[in-house]
């Protein structure tokens, strides 16, 4: 009898603890951490500078290449309407045959090689623009990165990179983006470091950056030697960060500090 009476107090307590915990761990878009004026900028298609990159991407998407006479639009529609938005939300994906992490940009670049013999280097502004355009087609779709099977091992490696300290400032991603989201770093609120808004327009640099570029910029700020473009580390970290965003709506092009 006494135990039952006690449980009246203990149960709500436990429930409270549990709920507090889940609320904290729940993924939240960077949108919730930016200033109201930045949110307004993102929401207004005429004010969001990222839309210029989307437009540039659309232009490139419709550009016919010399040797094939074809453009991306030849297969995927002038506005990319034949693209599968559910599949876009799966990126980065793991290719079990080549044992490779394929980013959305890499997929576009591979596809592009079917219609032109002039490949572009990773993170070439034209590829970033195409990536931004294609990702924007899936805007509103929920991020849905694979986490099981062979990917689970890769995510463990990504998590290790996420929790490792780097550079003279000697912090890990975990320190800011898991321990201190919502705290102020000077005038900006620290976010959870989610990937759903990327490629995003950055107020700090005045340019669109994809997730890999953003990671490199972050490492530079840590006064660390950034992981090289196309390195295993940056792919693993990019995969891990995007998997943390599962369930969040794609916002490309988001506006972020």
């Amino acid at each position, binding site marked *: 009898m006494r135990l039952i009476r006690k449980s009246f107090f203990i149960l709500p307590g436990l429930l409270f603890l549990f709920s507090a915990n889940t609320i904290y761990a729940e993924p939240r878009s960077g949108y919730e951490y930016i200033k109201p004026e930045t949110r307004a900028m993102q929401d207004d298609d005429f004010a969001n500078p990222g839309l210029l990159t989307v437009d540039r991407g659309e232009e490139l998407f419709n550009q016919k290449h010399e040797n094939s006479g074809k453009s991306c639009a030849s297969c995927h529609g002038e506005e990319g309407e034949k693209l599968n938005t559910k599949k876009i939300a799966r990126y980065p994906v793991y290719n079990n045959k080549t044992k490779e992490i394929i980013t959305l940009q890499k997929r576009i670049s591979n596809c592009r090689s079917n219609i032109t013999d002039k490949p572009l280097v990773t993170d070439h502004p034209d590829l970033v623009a195409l990536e931004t355009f294609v990702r924007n087609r899936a805007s509103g779709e929920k991020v849905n990165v694979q986490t099981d099977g062979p990917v689970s091992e890769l995510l463990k490696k990504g998590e290790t990179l996420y929790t*490792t*300290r*780097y*550079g*003279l*400032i*000697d*912090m890990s991603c975990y*320190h*800011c983006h898991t*321990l*201190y989201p919502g*705290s*102020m*770093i*000077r*005038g900006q609120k*620290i976010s959870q470091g989610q990937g759903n808004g990327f490629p995003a327009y950055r107020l700090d*640099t005045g*340019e669109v950056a994809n997730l890999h570029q953003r990671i490199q*910029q972050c*490492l*530079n*700020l840590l*006064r*660390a*030697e*950034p992981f090289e473009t196309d390195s295993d580390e940056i792919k693993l970290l990019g995969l891990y960060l995007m998997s943390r965003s599962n369930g969040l709506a794609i916002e490309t092009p988001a506006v972020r500090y």
Partner: protein
Amino acid sequence: MNLSVITSSVVMIFATWLALFPASGFAADVVNMPPPEPYCQWKVDNYAIKKPLCGYVGDAKRGKAIASNGSIGNCLACHQLPIDGVEAYGTIGPPLEGVGTRMSEGFIRLRVVDTRNISPMSIMPGFYRDPKLINRPGKAFAGRTFLTAQQVEDVIAYLVSLK
């Protein structure tokens, strides 16, 4: 004619500079950095570093300037400090007003030099951590401490003066 050549070359140099160093303030600091100073060893004694780094004497006025400068100490990124005219400060670390009444000089020194001796999971950078312990330092920062020994002593003199 000459003037236009000069003007255009100045514009060209400026444009090249911007193209090379888009994150201006930060990269400019790297270019102007003096070579690294020899690292002075320090000793933790009862949760404090009692002796000043390299035996330097700190200056509170210089320390205040270092603390508030975003590209040197950048204390305001995480801490609130009683400095006039500051619009934005961080809330990651505790506010430091009156820190001189709460903590001894040696304890403050350990906090600034390498706070992980007290809390291993701390987010706070060690401002005079052994450069050998730094993982993947940027090329320009290899072998360096975050602040020089003199700068650390200046900041400590400033913090001790906050009463």
